[in-house]
Structures are given as structure tokens and as C-alpha cells.
């Protein structure tokens, strides 16, 4: 297992060495979203009774930042190593596919949690947000980081060029996170879009996460947990499979 710890350490060090860009920048972006949206919509929107729009927005923004950064971590690490060729240093070692998978996904979760917690810490200085059930908060944060970490592994392995990875990010990850009910409750949507939202796995991540704060959500938290856990299993199995067969890594 020694090799696994080293790869995990390396993956953590990799983003931590540039934490201004990988942690501080997304926290600032989330803060800007909060200031602008809450300024524009505060007086017009109330999603849950007794909860201000600003407060409603905070968990969604934290989860969105967490997801995007978990994805960015594993995907960018893989594609950079692939394109510069230094992935060979990992491929030459006795590390098993499972060890490589776990190291990348745990580093993605770690960066996601750091950004998510950072967003919460900064925004909760400005907005009063209750935390009813921290266990749900934590569970969905970790699962969200894991799902996006696995998606990052898949995208990082699949993409041959940076623009393919950017396309994956812009056409899959960003739409799914924005349409996950970060800025609104899906119940405020027309029927068709309400149903469509239920097909978006990120919706359950945001909703379950938010449930941990307010004790209420659009769907019961256990449903969200089941969907999310199923997604993690499926995507985790797929990324592990790709690593095992060496798809695009070992010719």
C-alpha cells in the first residue's frame, strides 16, 4: 500500500502547490455569484418558507464549487500527465489500477471539500445559514466529490487534447451543475423541466446537501442518497475498468 499513499500525497501536493488558483480562486468566484444573485433576486424570490434567498443560495453554491473542482482535479492531473508524458512514471510502477483509482479520487474529494468548505466558511460570515444535520452535509459532500472525481478520471483518460477536456467540462459538467437547482428550487419549474431535473444526478447531490442545512428539500434525502450512491458505484466501476484495461494509457 506504500505506493498508494505516495500517489495520493503527490496528487494532494499537486493542487496544494498552486492552491491560490485551485482553492482560493473558486471560493472568490462563488462569493461573486452570491453577491450578484442575491442582490438581484433577494427581494423577489423565496424558495423555502422562512429562509432567505441568500441563505438558500449558499449550500447550492458550495456544492457547485465542490463538484466543479473535484472534477477539475482528477481530469486536469490526468490529461496534463498524459500530454507531458510524465504519466509514464506512474505506469512504470507496481501500483495497481485500484490504488491509482483511489489516489486520484481521494485527491479530488479532498480538493472538492476544501473548496466547498472554503465557500461555506466565507459565505457564512456574510449570511446566516442554519446547519440542521451536518452528517447529511458531509455525506453528500464526500459522495459529490467522489462522483465528480470519477467523472474526471474518465474524462481525463478519454480526452487526447485539452480542448476535448474543456468540451466535456463546458458541455457536460457546467450544464449539469447549473441545472441542478443551485439557484432555484426545481419545484418552481414547469412540469417538463421539473421531470427533466429529476434525471440529473447532480440535482440529488445539491438537494441532499441542502437538506443537511435546512432540514427540507425537493425530494427525501434517502432517495437522493440512493441515487447518488448508485451513481458513484457505476462511475467508479467504469473508471476502475478503464484503468484496469489501460484504455488509452497502456496501448
Amino acid at each position, binding site marked *: *500500500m*506504500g*505506493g498508494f*499513499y*505516495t*500517489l495520493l*500525497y*503527490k496528487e494532494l*501536493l*499537486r493542487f496544494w*502547490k*498552486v492552491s491560490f488558483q485551485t482553492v482560493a480562486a473558486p471560493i472568490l468566484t462563488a462569493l461573486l455569484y452570491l453577491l450578484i444573485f442575491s442582490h438581484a433576486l433577494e427581494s423577489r424570490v423565496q424558495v423555502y418558507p422562512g429562509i432567505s434567498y441568500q441563505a438558500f443560495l449558499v449550500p447550492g453554491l458550495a456544492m457547485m464549487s465542490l463538484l466543479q473542482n473535484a472534477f477539475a482535479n482528477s481530469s486536469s492531473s490526468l490529461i496534463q*500527465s498524459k500530454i*507531458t*508524458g*510524465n504519466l*509514464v*512514471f*506512474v*505506469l*512504470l*510502477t*507496481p*501500483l*495497481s489500477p485500484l490504488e491509482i483509482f483511489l489516489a486520484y479520487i481521494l485527491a479530488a474529494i479532498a480538493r472538492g471539500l476544501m473548496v466547498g468548505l472554503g465557500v461555506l466558511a466565507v459565505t457564512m460570515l456574510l449570511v446566516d445559514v442554519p446547519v440542521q444535520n451536518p452528517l447529511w452535509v458531509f455525506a453528500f459532500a464526500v459522495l459529490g466529490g467522489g462522483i465528480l472525481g470519477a467523472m474526471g478520471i474518465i474524462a481525463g483518460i478519454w480526452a487526447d487534447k485539452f480542448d476535448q477536456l474543456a468540451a466535456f467540462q463546458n458541455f457536460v459538467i457546467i450544464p449539469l451543475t447549473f441545472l441542478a437547482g443551485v439557484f432555484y428550487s426545481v419545484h418552481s419549474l414547469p412540469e417538463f423541466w421539473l421531470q427533466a431535473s429529476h434525471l440529473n444526478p447532480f440535482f440529488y447531490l445539491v438537494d441532499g446537501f441542502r437538506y443537511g442545512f435546512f432540514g427540507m428539500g425537493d425530494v427525501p434525502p434517502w432517495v437522493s442518497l440512493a441515487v447518488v450512491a448508485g451513481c458513484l458505484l457505476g462511475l467508479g466501476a467504469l473508471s476502475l475498468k478503464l484503468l484496469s484495461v*489501460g484504455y488509452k494509457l*497502456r*496501448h
Partner: protein
Amino acid sequence: MAVSSARARRQHPPTMPAIEVRQASKRYGPVRALDGVSLTIEAGEFFGLLGPNGAGKTTLINLLAGLARADGGSLRIMGHDVVEDYRRARRALGVVPQELVFDPFFTVRETLRIQSGYFGMRNNHAWVDEIIERLDLTEKADANMRSLSGGMKRRVLVAQALVHRPPVIILDEPTAGVDVELRQGLWRFIRELNGAGHTIVLTTHYLEEAEALCGRIAMLKHGRIVALDETANLLKGFSGVRIRIRLEPDELPAQLAGYNAGHEGALRLLQVQDYGQVEEVLAAIRQAGLLVLELEILQADLEDVFVQVIRGK
């Protein structure tokens, strides 16, 4: 160094071949990169793998290192199958890749400690420091990889291949683009490793290096082994002596036509078996009444062998 190889020998019985390749084949699309290659390299050998670009040298190395998977055949390193028992096989193997790759996030020392850690050797600082010193990297040990010159990066690649003290070391074109001084230093070091019991496999474009260093050589062409022998035998068997001569008038006596090996500018080239035949050639020229304006007698080197073998003997 001696300690590490003693350990290497204890883990792997000395009678076992360092590398055993059986009928290895690999296709990339329509291209047969390797076409049924079989090869055994004994422990402790200094082995050269030669061939023109695209002959399959790097493919063979990639199969041994697990960077690519064979379509057929089997490959073993110190008796461990590179697919079935990849963990042990990779532990026994150090590879210096051809491309000058590095991770721009880390310093030299970090790079080496991380590489060592991948092999489960985390308290390996003393050995890492020793390699740094032996490869003259001490001054740059804490510099970021990005700031290093090409030659320095090459040394780090060599160091990375050695961090886990592998009994078998493969160097894929390690001296490409490296200055003379570093090249000599590198070879001194590699020779020492070989002297201490490590098996060395080398590919290089500098044939004089292979001639000077390798005890045995395999030549690859179109994914097949076209020559495999001790370096001395290859030199003996394939070449002989070459005569470079300028005649006045410039015409070859008819009985020498069989020795004709073409022109080199104004000079004629004649290929003979040994020095005894040089005399015959000169006698024939004298008899024909030709005047020798210029004469050079050359002992063939590995380059001649290489050219002959690769052109199809």
C-alpha cells in the same frame, strides 16, 4: 551499489534469465511493430538493442515495462510475467524512457522521493541522496524540474529508474542530445552498475557506444530480430576489411569485380574478408599496371555490420 545488487541477487536466483521474451508480437493498426520476437538476456549482461527508427525497439521496451500489451507471446523479467505478475516484474525493472519527460510541479529531490514512494520505499532518502550525488545533481537537487537543462533532465530520468534498485535496467536512447562529458560520466556509472551485477539493456543511435559497451547485441528490423550475437562475433562474422582506394586510371581490374563495394566520392571501396586478401588485391592492381594514388585500409566497425545487416546482408 554492491549492497543493492547483492540484495537483487538474493531475491532472484542468479540462474534465472533477467529478461525472457517468447514470440512477442504487437500490432499498431496495420503495422506489425513486433513480429514474433524471442530473446533471452542473462542476468549480468550488458545488452544492446539496435535497429533503425521504427524497427520495434521501443515497442519491445514498452511491452517489457507494461506500457503496452503484447498481442501474442509472453515476456518475463527476472522470471516474473509482465502481465500476470506485473507488480514483481515492475519492481525488478528500471526504465529510462526515450522522451525527456518530467513533472513540472516538483523539484529534483521531490521527484525522486515520490518515484521511490511509488515502489513502496518511503524511507529511501539515503539512497536517493546517493544517486543524486553520483549523477552530479547535488547542486540542482532543490531546483524545480522546469529550470533544468536537457542534459540535467536526462540525468534525473536515469536517477528515477534507479530509485527502487532494480536488478534490470533498460535505457532507451539515454544519450540522445547529451553532451560528451555527461555521456562519458553516464557510461562510467552504468558500467559500474553492470559491474555490480545489474543487467543493462541499451538502445542507442551511437553505434560506437554499443560497440564499446555491449557484450551482446540484437539487431531489429521491421519487428524481427535479424542479428543476435556477441558483439565480437558480429564484428568478425559480418564485415572483414574495407579498402578505400584511388586509382589512375580509375578502372577496376576484372578479377577484382567481386570485391567492389561502390564509390565514396572519387574513392573506390573494396570489401575483402581479411588482411591476406588485401595483398591479393594490391597484386592484381600492380599486374594491371594501375597507379595507386590514395589508399586506406579500414577495419570494419559496428556501423558497417549494422548497415549490412539492416540492408539485408
